[in-house]
């Protein structure tokens, strides 16, 4: 593993929302870290808290209704939770960029691509304020060429509605990378696109982050995309990180019952039918299950699961799982280790 300091370190993050009719305890002690240059995937079903986690990291969660009751977020050595607004803006532009799921909603329909693009360059890049108009224009053009868009001059003068979905998403990626950020958060970047366009956009994204050596957090619920893009994965369920592993290990040998079920429900090109899915549904956050939040749906549920919340057991250095099934494995391993000594 990497010896350097983590680029992003989230510890014990608890986020709840106070809404009419109660308090939704969404994130329940989320731990998350990544090193510079890593490509990390964050997988989970709709409503499991993937986007909430990322919004908390960028501090764009509206408070209220959101309440960050505890936890710490460090990015590049800085404590995000304690930053003042102007420092935060610097982190958002130059430190962390984000590509959203729906490029149509991410771009402002009443401004041309050029106006939006040039503003991003002007206010976010490190030398932006001292650039002349011409330089900014040049930068925008080269950024558009970077994302393989033809005829950038004309593009800068068009409105988002004049572009196709794939082109809009390329513009968003170009914008996000034009400030040369250390970390790119891509929130389902291909979900709203067709499969061939998604393939093109993801291939482009992979190439660019390789070129710039940008770290990436890829949020998605498509497991295939994770496998092809990332080197480490976090699996999230109902506001908990339930499993974290190197990507190839997760697909080779998933440990958590939820991960296993999730992988088995993906329809395969090789055929073989569709499995029965996971019984039940994601819990109501107003009154989440005690102990492990997956226990009401878990096929391997034990007595302890409803009483205690499992901590993360590290089966291997790069493979951790939050499930009591593996508690005995860990104690056995420790015993063996002491015997050897």
């Amino acid at each position, binding site marked *: 593993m990497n010896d350097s300091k983590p680029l992003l370190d989230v510890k014990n993050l608890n986020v709840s929302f106070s809404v009419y009719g109660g308090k939704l305890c969404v994130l329940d002690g989320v731990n998350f870290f990544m090193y510079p240059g890593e490509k990390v995937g964050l997988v989970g*079903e709709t409503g499991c808290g993937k986007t909430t986690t990322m919004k908390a990291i960028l501090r764009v969660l509206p408070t209220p209704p959101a309440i960050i009751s505890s936890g710490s977020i460090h990015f590049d050595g800085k404590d995000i939770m304690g930053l003042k607004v102007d420092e935060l803006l610097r982190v958002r532009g130059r430190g962390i960029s984000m590509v959203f799921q729906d490029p149509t909603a991410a771009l402002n329909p009443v401004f041309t691509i050029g106006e939006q693009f040039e503003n991003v360059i002007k206010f976010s890049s490190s030398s932006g304020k001292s650039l002349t108009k011409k330089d900014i224009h040049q930068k925008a053009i080269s950024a558009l060429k970077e994302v393989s868009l033809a005829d950038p001059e004309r593009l800068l003068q068009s409105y988002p509605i004049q572009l196709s979905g794939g082109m809009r998403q390329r513009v968003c990626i170009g914008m996000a990378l034009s400030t040369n950020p250390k970390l790119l958060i891509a929130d389902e970047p291909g979900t709203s696109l067709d*499969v061939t366009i998604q393939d093109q956009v993801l291939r482009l994204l992979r190439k660019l982050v390789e070129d710039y050596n940008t770290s990436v957090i890829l949020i998605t619920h498509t*497991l295939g995309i994770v*496998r092809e893009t990332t080197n480490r994965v976090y699996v999230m369920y109902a506001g908990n990180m339930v499993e974290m592993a190197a990507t190839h290990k997760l697909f080779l040998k998933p440990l958590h019952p939820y991960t296993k079920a999730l992988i088995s429900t993906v*329809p*395969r090109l*090789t055929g073989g039918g569709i499995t029965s899915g*996971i019984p039940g*549904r994601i819990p109501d956050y107003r009154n989440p299950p005690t102990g492990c939040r997956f226990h009401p749906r878990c096929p391997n549920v034990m007595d302890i699961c409803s009483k205690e919340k499992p901590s993360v057991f590290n089966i291997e250095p790069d493979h951790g799982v939050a499930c009591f099934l593996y508690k005995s494995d860990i104690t056995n391993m420790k015993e063996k280790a002491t015997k050897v000594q």
Partner: protein
Amino acid sequence: MIDDILTITNLKKHFVIGHTGRMSGRNPITVKAIDGISFSIREGETYGLVGESGSGKSTVAYIAIGMYLPSSGSIRFRNQELFRGKEKRSREFKKAIQIVFQDPGSSLNPRQNIKQILEMPLRVTKSENNRMEQIIYLLEIVGLPPEYMYKNPGMLSGGEKQIVAIARALATNPSLVILDEPTSALDVSVQAKTINLLLKLQKEFQLSYMFITHDLSLMRNVSNRVAIMYLGKICEIADTIDFFRNPLHPYTQMLLSAIPVINEEEEKLKPEKVISTGEIPSPVNLPPGCSFHSRCPFIMNICKQVDPVMAEIEENHVVRCHLFTQPGSENGTSVPSNMIL
């Protein structure tokens, strides 16, 4: 020989979206949403219709249930013509062909409860006697408890809403159900459950399905035969197993190679040399020749001039591509001489 339940012959649907020129020489601008497609669905099978957005899949579905009138061509249900001029479709046909829409959030009336939603088709088609029992029976066959009757769609999860939509489609005892991307708005685990329910119902009530989707891996697991659509035309039809073993049309290969997959075995099934490029062009003012030529990696001169015709390359495997109908071309040598254009 199994009979065909739905036979579509040279079906066309052109939408007029505006006019060019002055009042005197006005020419309509048309979108050729469907431009001469022919296929047939056999009794009891699941027929997959695959394509990107804008390829005309949903238009086919809407014509089949009678929401649109076709511009020309015929569509026959058990050998009876469905469209006789402007004459209204008889209730028999309306009962026999039902549809499940893509987004259950907008296809169920939020102001009605489930009882009212299910009651509507029953009121039209069945006797007043023991209405309650009929509704309870409908809920029972899709696996929902009777107390759901008094819930509103807003109280249900996406998966449950789609199940209610399926129950509503079954209320009239149909023999052909059109599934227009029934699971694309759902998570994979919920998708698995919904698909299993659909397969169970198909067996129980001897239903035929026209299954519309853009997800080829899902198609591999549910359908008996697959048709690939591109810009209002069908480019390949084959039995599912044969189709995935030996995809022929360049567009099909591009689609397959763009699918994100989760294991090595699946990776082997993807054609490697075809990398997706370009986007689906606007269906207004299509260029002459094959509509796929702007993205095709194997483009030849003839593709820009002449639109290829359907040719049966193997038994039950039909392709519309010059590569297979031209003498002396790379793959065309094995084509029997009577197939040559």
